[in-house]
């Protein structure tokens, strides 16, 4: 864990008091989103969408008590390759490496 340079002056209880309801709502958003995906018409019986798989993996990070969760979730959703690609495949990004990116993991 990185050394904390400018400690948050709030107590742990203050932090929970200030932010719990907001993040309880965000948790419910994720729960409802996953339910929505389940309810949607499958279309094909292919494998689970890679973005949902990435989200499930990220949810495990939230609960493993190893700290630095934000950094680790971002790393989990990062392209781990190191070579330049031959041509830019469009301009956008989708939030987590698509299956075509060999992430070594």
């Amino acid at each position, binding site marked *: 864990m*990185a050394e904390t340079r400018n400690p948050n002056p709030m107590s742990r209880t203050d932090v929970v008091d200030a932010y719990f309801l907001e993040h309880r709502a965000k948790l419910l958003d994720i729960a409802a989103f996953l339910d929505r995906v389940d309810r949607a018409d499958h279309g094909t019986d292919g494998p689970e969408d890679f973005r949902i798989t990435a989200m499930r993996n990220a949810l495990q990070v939230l609960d493993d008590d190893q700290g630095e969760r934000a950094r680790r979730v971002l*790393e989990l959703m*990062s392209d781990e390759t190191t070579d*330049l*690609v031959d041509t830019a495949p469009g301009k956008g990004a989708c939030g*987590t490496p698509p299956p075509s990116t060999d992430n070594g993991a």
Partner: protein
Amino acid sequence: MTYIDPHIHMVSRTTDDYRRMALAGCTAITEPAFWAGFDRSSPQGFFDYYRQLTETEPARAALYGIKHHCWLCVNPKEAEDPGFAREVMSLLPKFLEEPNVLGIGEIGLNKNSKNEMAILEEHLAFAEDRNQLVLVHTPHLEDKRKGTLLIMDAIANTKLQPDRVLIDHVEEHTVADVLDRGFWAGMTLYPETKCTPQRAADIIEIFGTERLWMNSAGDWGDSDPLAVPKAIVELRRRGHSPETIRKATLENPKTFLGQSPRFDAGDA
């Protein structure tokens, strides 16, 4: 409290945004050249954009007492055609003469492609030759960490001093590397795809305020020109000192940008 927003795309914003920013305490801004949401069809399109950045926006900002500065380049999203990018780059020397231009930016990578890197390296060489400050755009989402590392390696191959380069759009997985290598780091406060005011405050708690600033990068997409004052409120709500807040939102931008004699912080 007065503040500087060192990265915002006012060509995409309304005059009412200038008014609201001024009311919130903004005294100076810097506007990097970026992708307009569509590919320009000719170098002439960039010529007109550079005129907008060097003539129109400073005049619009002045109506609200805000000092406007800009950075010029071909952004990485329009660098996939190197021939076209080089034609546009040939316009840069003329526009660098304009009094509100602080340097080269926002250059960088978008999809981490070979052509993007070739044009990035040419911009870096251009900045090196003319002793320009550099503002770097790092890629989005899954491409960010890889791109940030590739960009820092490319800069390390030049004679550019890290303390004259700001690497923007850092998040929790890139900020440590950027600061450890001696660069300045910018946190972009976007509602969805980059950093929220709360996470920016968290990063300041963990990493301190040395060589770190924040910006709204307000543009034509989902963004908020008042994101910096909202982060100020977040830091204040947590009980951080006025000195800490002032350093991140005013003194640091003044220190980095003040390396250009053209920078004017306004009433700050």
